[in-house]
């Protein structure tokens, strides 16, 4: 298994290189210029050109990419054009802000989806099954952006129970174990958790239904096992796919929470990525994408290894 893990880690290098090349190329294709968005409309061409030269943007594209890559290999992600702050610091801070709420969201989604999925699968066609299906369809269908706004209106404005936005006094002092801080994270967590919860509920229900219809379940019943024990056996069989789904959803949450983070002004990677795209801040964009891609690949590796632990039939070699 260790050789498998090592091989996978080595394979991440060309994957990450490919991701950075594509990201770099796509940003270059998009119209716009990071320097023009910084200066006033009456800035002279010489002033703009001088700033472009300062950031190395006047170099041929291939040289720009290779210089960036060389610096990254040395641990230097460069400076953000729009904020003039080190990209590494920016991305690390944003990643910390996102990973925690993403983890909490996906764990809550996983636990709740397993419960709902089991309930629905063991009562097929019942009102409970239909209710769970309705919740799942709602969760998949509802636009996350809309949900976030509705949560703000209901819980922050109407009820005044939760703050509408931000990370309290700032992410530098934010303490998830302090209720006065944690309440800022509740609505973002709910908004992030609903789509994966819905997806995993449906997956759990359908996978479990299939398992419960298999012959070995009949055998277990014939042997006199309780329904609870039978369900435990059945759930063990769906764990590999459930774990895979959990990993995928975590990866999506880390990289795809732009809308939720924008509504809640939660300073995570989605917010940072959105900003980097809108300002064409190439160093920040490349750095953020690289970190997110690395996280995604590592999460998938962990998931694959976890699957082989959960299901001995899967041998990673």
């Amino acid at each position: 298994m260790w050789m498998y893990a090592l091989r996978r880690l080595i394979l991440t290098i060309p994957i990450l290189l490919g991701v950075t090349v594509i990201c770099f190329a796509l940003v270059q294709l998009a119209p716009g210029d990071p320097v023009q968005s910084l200066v006033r409309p009456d800035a002279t061409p010489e002033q703009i050109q001088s700033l472009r030269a300062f950031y190395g943007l006047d170099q041929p594209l291939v040289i720009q990419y290779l210089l960036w890559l060389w610096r990254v290999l040395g641990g230097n992600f460069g400076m953000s054009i729009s904020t003039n702050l080190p990209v590494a610091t920016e991305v690390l801070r944003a990643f910390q802000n996102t990973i925690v709420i993403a983890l909490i969201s996906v764990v809550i989604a996983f636990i709740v989806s397993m419960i709902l999925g089991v309930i629905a699968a063991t009562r097929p066609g019942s009102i409970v099954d239909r209710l769970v299906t309705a919740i799942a369809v709602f969760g998949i269908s509802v636009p996350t952006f809309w949900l976030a706004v509705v949560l703000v209106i209901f819980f922050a404005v109407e009820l005044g129970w939760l703050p509408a936005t931000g990370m309290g006094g700032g992410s530098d002092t934010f303490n998830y174990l302090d209720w006065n801080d944690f309440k800022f994270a509740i609505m973002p967590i709910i908004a992030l958790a609903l789509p994966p919860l819905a997806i995993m509920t449906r997956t759990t229900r359908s996978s479990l239904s299939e398992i419960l219809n298999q012959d070995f379940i009949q055998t277990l019943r014939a042997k006199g096992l309780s329904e609870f024990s039978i369900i435990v056996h059945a759930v063990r069989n769906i764990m590999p796919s459930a774990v895979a789904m959990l990993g995928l959803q975590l990866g999506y949450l880390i990289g795809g929470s732009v809308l939720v983070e924008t509504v809640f002004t939660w300073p995570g990677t989605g917010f940072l990525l959105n900003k980097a795209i809108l300002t064409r801040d190439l160093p920040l964009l490349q750095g953020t994408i690289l970190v997110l891609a690395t996280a995604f690949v590592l999460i998938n590796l962990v998931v694959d290894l976890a699957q082989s632990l959960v299901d001995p039939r899967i041998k990673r070699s």
Partner: protein
Amino acid sequence: MKSIKLRGVLAAAAFALAAGAAGSATAETVLRVAMTAADIPDWTGAPDQGYEGYRFAGYTMYDALALWDLSSSDQAADIVPGLATSWEIDPTNNLVWTYHLRADVKFHDGCAWNADSAIWNFSRVMDSASPQFNPRHAAMQGSGVVNVAGVEKIDDLTIKITTKTPASLLPYDLAMFYMISNCGVEAAGNDYAKYGEKPAGTGPYMFDKLVPHERLELVKNAAYWNPDRVPKHDRLVLLPMPEASTRAAALLSGQVDFVEAPSPDTIPVLKDAGMNIVTVPYPHNWDYLLRVDTGPFSDIRVRKAANMAINRQDMVDMLQGVATAGYNTLIESQAWYGTPPIYEYDPEGAKALLEEAGCMPCKVKFGISTSGSGQMQPLPMNELVKEQLDEAGFEVELVPMDWNALINVFFQGAEKSGFDGINFSMAPIDASQGILKKWMTPYAPPSCCNWGFYKNDKVDELGNAALAEFDVEKRNIILTEMNNTVMADAPELFVVHDLNPRALSPKLTGYVQAQSWFQDLTPIVVNP
């Protein structure tokens, strides 16, 4: 024993009362502002994020040689003495200005403001060989000093500024050029990233804390050189909140006290909740810059037809009254507004003009943005304009793009853009930005802002005359004539001027909304 106990109780009660009183006396008053900016503006003396950056991270911490008088809502803001108490042009040489600097002013870090500081600051953006040269500041603040040839010290409180060409509007340019602490930068070894950890200006607020992308906290400068503008609150917290519904929710839930640009559809809800909505005209122009050197809009009949096709009242109604009809680049309270043609809504008249011009249907392509500084609600507004123009015989194609892409189109100029016009709001805060750089031939792209390549020799002549006229009254007459000449040519499609809505918590008093892109927050009192 009883009396000792009683005395003890009384003493404890008195102590508790005193402690409580002392606590409430020292309780900090905090003004929390939700900005529309997507990020904290640059706080080191060269703001970005458009003029909102100047508003919140510029004129708060820093001063310029001149400042904007933001004390009145009744007239467009003009400049007043700032770090210079007066300035005059050399009567024998119209390239030389003498600036008399304000005495007894210190930067927030204790560094003295004087001629050496001033010259150091000019070098910061002009002299690439100087150790303090900052390429970023040079690009972001350099527009204000591009016509400066040199700065010379006469004495500790007097400098001479020589321009390259006659520049009667130089004081306005320099009102946008901030002075930062030379001591601070030198102490940081000319490392501006390190300087940014504790920047220092001379402004009414001092830097206290920054959490990147989240909050910028400033505290009042109790020793500010203008005692009338020492802030009436202790702390100013600036929060970027680009999403309008988030800003409204934050205000309604009590998380912030002051909100920039609430969206029109949230204003009734905010009012019902007891918030104060303030609006005032300011030098903003929501318009279409038209390509006039070639294409459909090279014909003045087509330009006039476009202006006649717009039902501006419909647009104002759609925006729930947070705009006024526009017929000019400038707003009425600006000294050079003049007497622009007032286009009545007349789609039939527009059609007749288009027939006469042989452009029926008149196909035009506009570049627009989905958001952006000063763009208001661009998508529904552009849809309404398209509908009105199409009804009047135009065939409008709207090409939406993000704000950064539209800025690029602006800098490219009409010729390279491929568009007949762009919806690009501008800030005519002074005659230079509102008239000269918009309409004079030398300012066609890539040199500046005459996007559509408008060309009129009389306008160029008047512009040069204005730049060489240092008497304010006489210059205003020239500028007014210049603006009238341009407006008669209908060089733009005028639609509305934004009324700069802001929403304030009822616990705020003392705010005076200036007719300006910049605002003075110092008089605001944050009541319990």
